[in-house]
């Protein structure tokens, strides 16, 4: 193990998909010495606990654009990173349960189509054609986008990290940031149990702990982490490739490549916090819902359940870019449960913003921290 560094050009805090992808994009443009600090190990936080879904069917234009550009990047990444990531465009089927919800979906589809997304409204009968075993009893319609899909979160996270390291970045795991040093309004370095690193630029990519990290730089972020549970079943013959989602009935699930069903919900009344323990109510409620939507799953066994953190922002959209008044501080956090699917585009934008302070991008600018003072432009409604 090389000696712990004393200086760096940029410190990325967090070894999840956001930190790894930003480190990769920075080394790709030869930014200089990039050091990644990870409190635990690569992919041990939200990335390694997520459902692996990728979708561009959002209700805000910012999320649609970021997601669509990310899909373009996902298509290139296996070749670029040289690792299989199980990326697959199996589609997303999003279910509507009332006429009111269907009219919201109609608006979403219209906006998404303006951005060039191939998305369509389906009748319950057409939804049943996508997944013949789906119970369409309480469904008034659905939306379908065939270019949505999924990926193995671990594999893409490790692939980004490995390539970043090959391109000159260095990674220190089990290394928590204790404090962040500033001189006036300028970032000057970070303190860890292994030593102090002098550095003019830091990137907060700390997922569920982004608020804690920001507070060390005396920046207050309006983020609320909370536990989000998920389960996986045994492997069975694959009978659908797409994600099935219902906002109204609070569930998402898909059948992963190896045949297991993976799905989750947002627990009613879940309090804020960083606990990731598993609970019994969750598998009971999920079992009822899975059995309702696909009655044929009744005999399939649940193998395991776990939990991760959603780091919610006030409008359920990420907080990106620089912060007025603190030179050298950047963040990409508050993804509200959707960091993996937005990471490929966000990391490209972040690397550009970090290496060129005059860089501007409409989405990056609109998703800055200052939007909460200026007034939020749009609120993301399509979340589970």
């Amino acid at each position, binding site marked *: 193990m090389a000696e712990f560094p004393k200086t760096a050009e940029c410190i990325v805090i967090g070894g999840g998909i956001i930190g790894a992808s930003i480190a990769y994009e920075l080394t790709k443009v030869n930014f200089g010495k990039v050091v990644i600090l990870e409190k635990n190990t*690569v992919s041990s936080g939200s990335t390694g606990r997520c459902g692996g879904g990728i979708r561009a069917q959002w209700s805000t234009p910012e999320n649609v654009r970021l997601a669509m550009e990310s899909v373009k990047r996902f298509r290139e990444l296996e070749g670029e990173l040289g690792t299989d990531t199980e990326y697959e465009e199996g589609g997303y089927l999003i279910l509507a349960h009332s006429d009111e919800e269907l009219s919201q979906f109609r608006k979403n589809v219209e906006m998404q189509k303006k951005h060039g997304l191939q998305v369509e409204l389906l009748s319950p009968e057409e939804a049943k054609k996508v997944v013949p075993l789906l119970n369409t009893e309480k469904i008034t319609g659905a939306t379908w986008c065939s270019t949505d899909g999924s990926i193995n979160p671990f594999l893409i996270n490790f692939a980004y990290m490995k390539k970043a390291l090959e391109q000159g970045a260095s990674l220190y795991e089990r290394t928590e940031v204790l404090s962040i040093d500033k001189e006036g309004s300028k970032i000057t370095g970070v303190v860890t149990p292994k030593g102090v690193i002098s550095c003019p630029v830091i990137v907060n990519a700390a997922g569920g702990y982004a608020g804690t990290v920001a507070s060390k730089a005396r920046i207050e972020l309006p983020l609320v982490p909370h536990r989000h549970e998920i389960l996986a079943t045994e492997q069975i013959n694959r009978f659908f490739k797409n994600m099935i989602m219902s906002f109204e009935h609070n569930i998402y699930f898909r059948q992963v490549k190896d045949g297991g069903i993976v799905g989750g919900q947002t627990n009613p009344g879940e309090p804020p916090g960083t606990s990731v323990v598993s609970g019994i109510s969750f*598998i009971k409620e999920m079992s*009822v819902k899975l*059995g309702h939507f696909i009655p044929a799953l009744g*005999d399939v066994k649940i*193998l*395991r359940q776990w939990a991760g953190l959603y780091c*919610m922002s006030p409008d359920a959209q990420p907080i990106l870019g620089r912060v007025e008044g603190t030179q050298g501080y950047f963040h990409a956090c508050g993804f509200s449960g959707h960091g993996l699917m937005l990471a490929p585009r966000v990391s490209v934008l972040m690397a550009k913003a970090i290496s060129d302070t005059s860089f501007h991008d409409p989405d990056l600018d609109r998703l800055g921290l200052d939007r909460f003072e200026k007034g939020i432009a749009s609120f993301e409604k399509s979340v589970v």
Partner: protein
Amino acid sequence: MKDLKIICRCQDVTEEEIVDAIRKYGLKSVDEVKRVTRAGMGHCQGKTCRKLVEQLLFKVNGFWPDPEEQSTSRPPLKSLPIKLVAASEEDFDAVVARGRGGQHG
């Protein structure tokens, strides 16, 4: 057909795959191996292969995994059919009436 030593029977992961992953990514704990190779994610939840993975970590790294970094065991203890679990809960309408919750309002 793999003619190699199977370490994780449930997920069909070989010794070679695990050793390669430890070397490729510099892995030091059973959970890291689990994330990269899926060893320990199947029916037995690592009850069979956990000790073997620890031995492979020692073999490659020259040191044992940190005892403070015990692999996480996931519930349920034994795999359970969806309909059996569902039978211990109220019906669908009652469950979804509990709402979205969390921070979504």
